[in-house]
Every structure is written in structure tokens, then in C-alpha cells.
């Protein structure tokens, strides 16, 4: 029983990481009408930036996390302003520009990987931060890292929720995600709000990277696997829905962990997709999705 419980906790913490990346993908989809295929590389970049901050200044992990989120968020805003905005002038979704944006995302993914390769090299680097002593929960003992990941992710999600529900800017973000033309008639600066959305999405991706860094190594190739699972998580939850992204992330994480524990660890990467297929057979729009919106 405690083996099962262990697997669930590991799955949940892994799921939280997927959920953070999936929230970013969903936010960008809701706000910009495009699927961002370079988000895995944003996650990778976040982990590297966190590692650099940690090695240079020896700050405690929460500060490293915040620092990496801010810097990666700014990188995201830069990417959106300089590259994506030009492509998206013609609109997103199933327009020609929307399709061009998909290609642009793939291109950005390759560019970011190579930039990281040039700066940090091909080796997997250790992120030698200590999460502290294992935490005892009743009869079982858990590595502290898993508990901290869950706590940090929950705090970030709660913060995002409060931002979207309670602040003037958060309301503007929701309005822009709903309808840009109406939002502009409300006096909202839509291009600026889109940059904010992109920055937040990238900051959340970076947070995921920094949280995972100490468990795994930090390396240039780390983005692609997480991107695909986060993508599955977003689709399972219903593309564009933030609660859906969280639920989807947790489902993917737990499924993967249980599958690896009871069936076979060598196939661990495919369980997420079994789950994806099963969910889409029952609910084609995902758990919280609406099928009416058609976007690319």
C-alpha cells in the first residue's frame, strides 16, 4: 500500500510540473490563438537560468525560482515582441499566419536549443541544491523534493488564480483571451496584454524547469519530453482551460508514475498517450473543453 502511495505522490509532483508547463501552453493558446511549440525550450531555458543564478549567487531555492521566472519571462516577452508579433499580425488560428506561427514555434524551439548548446554545451549539468531532509507523512517517508515541488506549484497556481480573478490587469488578460476586439473597445491595450500573457506563461514554464532541475540533470534536450507530456495534459484537460491544464497534468503524472511502477519503467513515456486516447474517446473536447472554439 505504501508503495502505491509513494507512486501517487511521485506522480502528483511530476504532474504538477507538467501542469505548470501545460498552464503556460493553455494561456498562450487562449490569449494568442496559437499553440506554442517552443514552450519546452522555455522550460529548459528556465532551468539553465536558474542554475546560473544558483551557481553565481548561491541564493536559496525560492529566490532562484523567482529570479529565473522573472528573467525567463522577460526573454519570453522579447521573443513575442520581436518574432511572433510580426507573424501574428495576420491573425492566429486556421489563418495562414496561424499556420506560419506553428512553423515559427518549431523554428524558435531549434534556435533556443542551439543557443543553449552554444552557451552551456552538450553535457547534462547537475543542479546541486539540497531540498533538505526527507519528510515523514504518517507511515511513509518521502524525499523532500517531491513535497516542495507540489507546494511551490500550488503557490504559483493560487497566485495565478488570484491575479486573474482579483486584479485589474488579470481581468484584462481574461478579456483579451475572450475577444480581442471587444477588449480593445474597453480601453485595454491589447498588444501589451498579449506580452503580459506570454511573459507569465514563460515564467511558469521556467518555474517548472527550476523545480525539476535538482531531481534530474539540466541539459539542452530536456524540453521536448516535457513539452509532449504537457501538451497531452493540456489536451486531456481541454485546450485553453487552466483548471483543465492542472487536472490534465496531474492525471498524466500519476498515470505515468503508476505505469512505471506496476507495469514497466522502460515504457514510461507512452502511458500519457494511452491516457490521452482514452480521455479523447470519451470526451473529445477534453475534461473542461468546449468544442465550439476552432483554433490551430
Amino acid at each position: 500500500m505504501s508503495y502505491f502511495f509513494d507512486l501517487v505522490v511521485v506522480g502528483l509532483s511530476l504532474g504538477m510540473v507538467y501542469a505548470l508547463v501545460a498552464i503556460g501552453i493553455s494561456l498562450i493558446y487562449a490569449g494568442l490563438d496559437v499553440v506554442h511549440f517552443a514552450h519546452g525550450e522555455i522550460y529548459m531555458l528556465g532551468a539553465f537560468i536558474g542554475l546560473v543564478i544558483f551557481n553565481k549567487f548561491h541564493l536559496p531555492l525560492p529566490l532562484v525560482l523567482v529570479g529565473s521566472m522573472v528573467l525567463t519571462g522577460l526573454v519570453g516577452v522579447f521573443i513575442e515582441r520581436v518574432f511572433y508579433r510580426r507573424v501574428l499580425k495576420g491573425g492566429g488560428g486556421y489563418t495562414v499566419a496561424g499556420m506560419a506561427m506553428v512553423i515559427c514555434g518549431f523554428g524558435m524551439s531549434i534556435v533556443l536549443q542551439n543557443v543553449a548548446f552554444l552557451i552551456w554545451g552538450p553535457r547534462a549539468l547537475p543542479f546541486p541544491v539540497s531540498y533538505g531532509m526527507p519528510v515523514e507523512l504518517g507511515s511513509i517517508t518521502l524525499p523532500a523534493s517531491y513535497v516542495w515541488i507540489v507546494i511551490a506549484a500550488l503557490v504559483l497556481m493560487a497566485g495565478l488564480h488570484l491575479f486573474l480573478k482579483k486584479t485589474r490587469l488579470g481581468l484584462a488578460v481574461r478579456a483579451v483571451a475572450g475577444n480581442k476586439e471587444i477588449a480593445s473597445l474597453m480601453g485595454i491595450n491589447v498588444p501589451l496584454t498579449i506580452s503580459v500573457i506570454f511573459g507569465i506563461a514563460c515564467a511558469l514554464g521556467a518555474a517548472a524547469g527550476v523545480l525539476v532541475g535538482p531531481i534530474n540533470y539540466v541539459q539542452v534536450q530536456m524540453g521536448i519530453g516535457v513539452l509532449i507530456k504537457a501538451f497531452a495534459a493540456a489536451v486531456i484537460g481541454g485546450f485553453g482551460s487552466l483548471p483543465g491544464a492542472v487536472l490534465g497534468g496531474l492525471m498524466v503524472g500519476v498515470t505515468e508514475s503508476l505505469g512505471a511502477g506496476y507495469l514497466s519503467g522502460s515504457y514510461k513515456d507512452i502511458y500519457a498517450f494511452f491516457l490521452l486516447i482514452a480521455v479523447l474517446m470519451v470526451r473529445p473536447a477534453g475534461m473542461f473543453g468546449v468544442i465550439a472554439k476552432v483554433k490551430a
Partner: protein
Amino acid sequence: MLKTIDVVGGYGKVQILNGVTLEVARGQIVALLGGNGTGKSTMLKAISGLIKPWNGSIEFEGERIDGMRPDRIVRRGLVQVTQGKEAYPGMTVEENLLLGAHVRTERAVRARGLERVYAYFPILKERRRQLSGILSGGQLQMLCVGRGLMSEPKMMLLDEPSAALAPQVVFDIFRAIARICRDGMTLLLVEQNVRMALLLAQYGYVIKDGVIHIEGPSEQMINDDAVRLSYLGGTVADRERKLSL
């Protein structure tokens, strides 16, 4: 207050406005009338900044606003009230209203705006915590008018407040709009419902094929055979109703 001169524009390569000239003085209610596909909505979009006019000029309080971004125009105090169906269905009534006050950051102004809107439309206060997606058509229209008021604009552009509403509901909405104007609002009212619009407005323009076809004081237009025959459907508007507005 608002003055457009020879505005030419359209979408893509399709020219819809072929030189529209109109003027709204401070404190006035002006109606812009026309059927489907005559260019009145396009004109509205040109004024509120959603499309950029190809030629001509639009001035608000003596300054050019044509080609300006919509949010900058809102900040100058010229707000377009959307049709009721364009409220955000996933937000509560109050969130929709607060969205209208986006350009006003002061807490006091936002609270004052809410109070003012709830005074005009008490039903919105009752339903303020509900999602706007479940409101009736008339309530949605009230919500959008209220949302327009929230930034305390100097002038409002109304996009067919009578669209898809029952006659009695239209009457309620127009009565509220009349009250808002009595409190000092300048209004450009874009309407298909010619009779109601002329009862409310002091001056009217009829747009057809992207140009102003007929214009004049509304009293005169109500009696004008040309207007009546082409837009009023033959019967004379009952002038008694004006008294109750």
C-alpha cells in the same frame, strides 16, 4: 464634439464607406440610420478605431483620432457601447462592468461607476454575482450600456441597442438611454429601428451605399416622406411616445 469629414474606408479591398461627413455637438443625441449593409457599422468601427479609414478625417474635441488605436480613443473619453451579445459570458455582471472601467485605476472612481450603473439599472445590481451568460437579451444590453458608462466617458457610440429585442424591452432601454443623456451625455446612436431612434435623437443622418443620403432635425425627418417610405415602413411615428421618453 465629434466631426468626420469625407471618411472613406472598408475591409481588405472592399470599399464600404464612400465619404461620410457627419457632426455631433456636445450634449446632442444624433442618430445614424440605415439598413443592413449600408455602412453604418463600418462607420462606427472607423470612429472607435477598430478599422483605419483610408481617407478623410475624424476629429474628437478638435483633435484627429482617425487611425488611432481603440484603447487610446477610449482614454480620450469616446467609448463604443457594444451590442448586448458582446458581453463576456464567462465573467460575472460585475466583472464585465469593472472591465468597462479598465482605463480608470482609482478605486473611488471604479466604485462610483458601479453605483451609478446600478442606479440606472437596478436589475444589474441584483444579478451582479451571476455570470452574464445567463442574462436575458434586454439585461445584456443594459449591461453593455452600463459597461460603457464605467469609464465616465464624454461621449458614447451606441451600436444598435434595439437589436434582437422585444418592443417593450427596446422601450425600456431607450428610456434609460434618454435618462443617461439628460444627465449630460453626448451620443451617436446607430440604429435600424428608425422610429425609436428619431424619437430619441435631435438630429438624424441616413446612410446608404456608404454615403450620407438624407440628414436633418429628427422632427422634420419623421415627417419626411422619403425617410418614411424607405425606412419607416409607411406609417407615421406616434409622436405621443416622445412625451414619455
